[in-house]
C-alpha cells in the first residue's frame, strides 16, 4: 500500500497544480466552468489526502515497520490510541496532516462561497492551491511519508515517551487546524486585493473561519500548556519556548483581526489595517509552522531540522511577505476609509487601541524570540533568551489589553455621553476598588505590583461583563416579561456574537488572574528525601511515605507516595512516577537499555483545587543499581552471544529463556528499589489559582464557540421608517417617503 500512497501524493500534487491553473485561467477569462472545475479539484485533493492519510494510519495501527516513519515513530507495544496519533509526531506525517486539513478547510470555504463573491473566489482559490501545492510538494519531493525500507525491522523505536499523553495527541491537530483555517481569510484577502472588490463582503464570508482559527489555536495552546504542566516535570505551563511563541503570535494577531473587522463591517474603517493584519496573520501562521520544523531555534518541541525544508519555507514566507506588501501598496487608494472616528470615547476607539496593543505584543514576542538568530547573524555570537527577557515587555502590554477588554463591552459604538459613561463604569470600578482593598490586606501582595494590577483589572473585566449580562437580561424582560433564566438564555441565543464575545473576555480575564497568581505567589522547593522524611513548604508538611515500582517489557516505573498535611490534617496523598522506556540500541546492554536509554517521562503528583495546586515530581536516583545492572548486562550478553551460535530452532528457544531471565532480573531490581529505598529528589510546588487558568481558558473557548455558532433563520418583522429624526433616503420622487424595512427581531 506504500506504493499506492506515494502515487496518491503525486496525484494530489498534479490535482493541486491543475486547480491552481484552472482557477487563474477561469479568473482571467471570466469563465465560470474553469473556476468550478478548480473548486472541484480542491474537493478531490481533500479526498486524495484523506485516503493517503488513512493508508498511513493503517500502517501505524498495524505496526507495519516496512514504512520508515512507522519504524522510527511507533512500536508494537505502543498503545493503540498513541499509534493512531503517532502519524503526526513525525515530520512527514505532520506535513500530510497539514495538507489534509488545509484542503479540507479550503473545500469547506469554497463550497460555502460557491455562489458568493464570484470575482474574489477564483483568486482566493488560486492562493489556497498555491499553499496546497507547496505542502504536498514537500511531501512528494523531500518528506515522503510512504518511504519504505528494504529490510523491515522486527520492532519499531516507539513513540517518544513525552508524547504519550492524551493532550499531546490532540494538540497538533488543533494547532494545524488553526494555522490552516487562517489560510482562508488570508487567501480571500489576497483575492479581494487582486480583484479590487474591497467591500466588507469578503470579510463576512471569512469571518467564521478567522474565529474558528482563533478558537482552534487557542485550544491547541491550552492543551500544550496543560501537557507542559502535567508531563514535563518542571512545574510550569508556559516557558516562552520559540515553538510556544510560534502558536501565540498568530493567535494574538487573529484576536486583533476578529475585533477590527467589526469596525470595517459597521463603519467601513480600518481597511488598510485589516488587510495588513489578515495578511500578516497568515504569514505568521506559516512562520510558526516553519519554526516547529526548522530547528533554527532551540526548542523541546521541534522536529529534526532538514535544510531542504528550511529553504523552501523561507522562500514561501518571502513570497508571502513581498506579495502582501505589494498588494496593499497597490490597492491603497481603494482601501480608503468610508468614515472617520466619531469620538475617542467610543467602542471603535477602544478596539483600535486594543489592536495596537495586540500588534505591539506580537512584535515584542517576535523580536525577543528571534533575537538569538538576529544576534548571531550580526555579532556571530549565539545568545539564549528565556522568560525573564519577555516579562518586562509582555506583562505591561497584557495588562493594558485586559483593561481594554473590560472597557469595550460597556462603551457604545460611535459615541457616548459623559453621563452614560459614568453610569456604565460605576459598578465595574466599584468591584475593582473592592478587590484592590481586599487584596491589599493580604500579606505580600503589595510587593507584586503587576500581579495586583492583573487581579484588579481582571475583576473590572468580570464585573463589566456581568453588568452587561444583567442589563441585557433586564432589557429583554422589560419587553417580553420572561423569567430571568429564560430572558438570559434568549438574550445570548439572539446575540451570539456579542455575548459570546463577552464570555470570552471574562474567560481570558480569569485565566490571566490565574497566571498572575500562580507565577507571582508560587512556593517551591527541591529536596532529597528518604522514605519517612518530611519537609515543610508554604505551611504544609510533605512526608515521603514509601517508594513504588513496577516493571514490564515496555516500561519501568519508579515512583513515590507522599502525604501532604496541614495542621495535622491530611490535605492530599500524591503519587508521582518516573517512567523509563527501553532503547532499541543493543550496545546499552539487555538491562542497561531500560535504565540508560534517555527516553523518560514524568507523571506528576497533583492535588488541584480552586484556591491552589499542590504539585510534585520525582527524580529517582538509579545510580545505586548501576553495579547490579552492569553485572546483569555482562552475564546476559555472554549468554546471548552463546545462544546466537546455536542452530536456529534452538536459538529462538534459548533467547526466549534468556529474555525471561532478563525480565526476572528487572523485576528484582525494581523490588530492590522498594525494599532497600534510598534518597530520591523531589520538586514540590504550591501554586495558587492555577485552576483558574484552565477554567478561564475553557470559558473563553465556550464563548468562542457561542460566537461562532450560526444564527438560526427566524421570522422577521417589519418596521416602518417614518417618524421624526429619519433622514429621508436619496430616492426618486416616485418612491414613497416612508418605506417598510424588514429587519431581524431585536434583542
Amino acid at each position, binding site marked *: *500500500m506504500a*506504493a*499506492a500512497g506515494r502515487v496518491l501524493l503525486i*496525484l494530489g500534487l498534479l*490535482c493541486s497544480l491543475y486547480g491552481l491553473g484552472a482557477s487563474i485561467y477561469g479568473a482571467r477569462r*471570466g469563465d*465560470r*466552468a*474553469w473556476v*468550478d*472545475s*478548480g473548486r*472541484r*479539484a480542491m*474537493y*478531490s485533493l481533500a*479526498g*486524495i489526502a484523506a*485516503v493517503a492519510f488513512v493508508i498511513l494510519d493503517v500502517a501505524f495501527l498495524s505496526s507495519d515497520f516496512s514504512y520508515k516513519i512507522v519504524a522510527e515513530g511507533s512500536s508494537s507495544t505502543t498503545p493503540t490510541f498513541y499509534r493512531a496519533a503517532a502519524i503526526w509526531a513525525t515530520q512527514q506525517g505532520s506535513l500530510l496532516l497539514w495538507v489534509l486539513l488545509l484542503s479540507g478547510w479550503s473545500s469547506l470555504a469554497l463550497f460555502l462561497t460557491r455562489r*458568493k463573491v*464570484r*470575482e474574489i473566489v477564483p483568486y482566493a482559490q488560486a492562493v489556497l492551491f498555491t499553499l496546497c501545492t507547496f505542502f504536498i510538494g514537500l511531501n512528494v519531493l523531500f518528506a515522503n511519508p510512504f518511504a519504505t525500507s528494504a529490510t523491515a525491522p522486527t520492532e519499531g523505536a516507539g513513540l517518544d515517551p513525552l508524547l504519550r499523553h492524551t493532550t499531546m495527541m490532540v494538540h497538533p491537530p488543533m494547532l494545524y487546524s488553526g494555522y490552516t483555517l487562517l489560510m482562508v481569510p488570508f487567501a480571500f484577502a489576497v483575492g479581494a486585493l487582486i480583484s479590487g472588490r474591497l*467591500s*466588507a*463582503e469578503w470579510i*463576512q464570508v471569512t469571518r467564521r473561519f478567522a474565529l474558528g482559527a482563533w478558537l482552534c489555536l487557542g485550544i491547541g495552546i491550552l492543551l500544550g500548556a496543560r501537557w507542559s504542566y502535567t508531563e514535563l516535570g518542571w512545574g510550569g505551563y508556559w516557558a516562552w519556548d520559540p515553538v510556544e511563541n510560534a502558536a501565540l503570535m498568530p493567535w494574538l494577531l487573529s484576536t486583533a483581526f476578529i475585533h477590527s473587522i467589526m469596525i470595517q*463591517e*459597521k463603519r467601513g474603517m480600518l481597511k488598510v489595517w485589516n488587510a495588513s493584519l489578515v495578511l500578516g496573520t497568515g504569514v505568521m501562521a506559516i512562520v510558526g509552522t516553519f519554526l516547529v520544523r526548522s530547528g533554527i531555534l532551540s526548542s523541546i518541541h521541534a522536529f529534526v531540522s532538514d535544510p531542504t525544508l528550511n529553504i523552501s519555507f523561507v522562500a514561501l514566507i518571502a513570497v508571502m511577505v513581498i506579495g502582501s506588501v505589494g498588494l496593499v501598496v497597490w490597492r491603497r487608494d481603494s482601501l480608503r476609509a468610508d468614515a472617520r472616528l466619531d469620538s475617542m470615547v467610543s467602542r471603535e476607539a477602544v478596539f483600535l487601541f486594543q489592536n495596537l496593543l495586540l500588534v505591539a505584543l506580537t512584535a515584542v514576542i517576535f523580536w525577543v524570540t528571534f533575537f538569538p538568530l538576529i544576534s548571531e547573524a550580526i555579532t556571530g555570537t549565539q545568545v539564549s533568551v528565556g522568560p525573564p527577557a519577555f516579562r518586562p515587555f509582555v506583562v505591561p502590554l497584557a495588562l493594558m489589553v485586559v483593561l481594554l477588554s473590560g472597557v469595550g463591552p460597556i462603551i*457604545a*459604538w*460611535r*459615541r*457616548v455621553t459623559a*453621563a*452614560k459613561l459614568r*453610569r*456604565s463604569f460605576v459598578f465595574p470600578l466599584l468591584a475593582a476598588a473592592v478587590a484592590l482593598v481586599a487584596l491589599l490586606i493580604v500579606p505580600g501582595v503589595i510587593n507584586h505590583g503587576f500581579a495586583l494590577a492583573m487581579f484588579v483589572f481582571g475583576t473590572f473585566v468580570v464585573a463589566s461583563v456581568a453588568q452587561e449580562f444583567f*442589563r*441585557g437580561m433586564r*432589557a429583554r424582560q*422589560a*419587553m417580553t416579561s420572561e423569567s430571568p433564566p429564560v430572558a438570559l438564555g434568549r438574550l445570548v441565543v439572539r*446575540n451570539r456574537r*456579542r455575548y459570546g464575545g463577552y464570555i470570552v473576555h471574562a474567560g481570558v480575564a480569569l485565566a490571566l488572574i490565574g497566571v498572575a497568581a500562580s507565577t507571582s505567589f508560587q512556593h517551591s522547593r527541591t529536596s532529597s528525601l528518604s522514605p519517612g522524611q518530611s519537609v515543610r513548604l508554604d505551611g504544609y508538611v510533605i512526608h515521603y511515605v514509601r517508594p513504588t515500582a513496577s516493571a514490564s517489557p515496555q516500561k519501568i516505573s519508579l515512583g513515590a507516595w507522599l502525604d501532604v498535611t496541614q495542621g495535622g490534617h491530611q490535605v492530599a496523598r500524591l503519587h508521582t512516577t518516573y517512567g523509563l522506556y527501553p532503547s532499541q540500541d543493543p550496545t546499552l546492554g539487555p538491562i542497561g537499555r531500560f535504565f540508560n536509554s534517555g527516553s523518560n517521562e514524568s507523571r506528576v503528583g497533583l492535588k488541584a483545587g480552586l484556591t491552589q495546586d499542590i504539585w510534585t515530581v520525582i527524580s529517582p536516583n538509579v545510580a545505586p543499581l548501576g553495579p547490579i545492572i552492569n553485572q546483569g548486562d555482562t552475564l546476559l550478553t555472554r549468554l546471548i552471544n552463546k545462544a546466537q551460535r546455536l542452530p536456529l530452532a534452538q536459538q529462538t528457544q534459548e533467547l526466549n529463556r534468556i529474555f525471561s531471565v532478563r525480565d526476572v532480573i528487572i523485576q528484582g531490581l525494581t523490588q530492590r528499589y522498594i525494599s532497600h529505598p534510598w534518597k530520591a529528589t523531589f520538586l514540590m510546588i504550591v501554586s495558587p489559582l492555577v485552576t483558574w487558568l484552565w477554567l478561564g481558558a475553557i470559558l473563553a473557548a465556550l464563548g468562542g464557540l457561542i460566537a461562532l455558532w450560526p444564527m438560526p433563520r427566524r421570522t422577521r418583522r417589519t418596521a416602518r*421608517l417614518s417618524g*421624526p*429624526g*429619519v*433622514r*429621508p*433616503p*436619496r*430616492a426618486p420622487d416616485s*418612491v414613497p417617503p416612508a*418605506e417598510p*424595512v424588514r*429587519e*431581524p427581531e*431585536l*434583542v
Partner: protein
Amino acid sequence: MEYVIVLIVLAVVIYAISSPFRADRRVIAGHPGQPGQPGQTGAPSPAAAVVHPSAPLTQDAVAELEAARDAKYREIRDAELDVRTGKLSDADYEALDGALRGEAVEILHALDEARKPV
C-alpha cells in the same frame, strides 16, 4: 488492491473536475424534454451559450448589497441593545437610529435596482 484504489480515486477525480465542462456542454447543446430550455427547438439560447458579461457582476453587486443590508440591520439591532442597556442616551439613539435606518433604506433601494433584470 492498492492499484484498484488508485484507479478508483483517479476516476473520481477526473469525473469531478470535468463535471462543470460537461454541464456546460449539456446546456449549450440542449436537453430535449425540458420546457423552456434550449434544445427543444434545437437552437442554443444565447444566454445559456455565452456567460453574460454582466451577469456575474450583477450577482456580485446583489450579494454585496445583501451583505451591506445585513450589516446595517446588525447595527440597528446593536444600537437598540445599547440604548436598552443604558450605554446610549435617548437623544443619541434617536439620531443614530434615524441615520442607520436611512442608510438601510438607501441600501434597499440600491438592492432593488440591482435586482432588476438586465
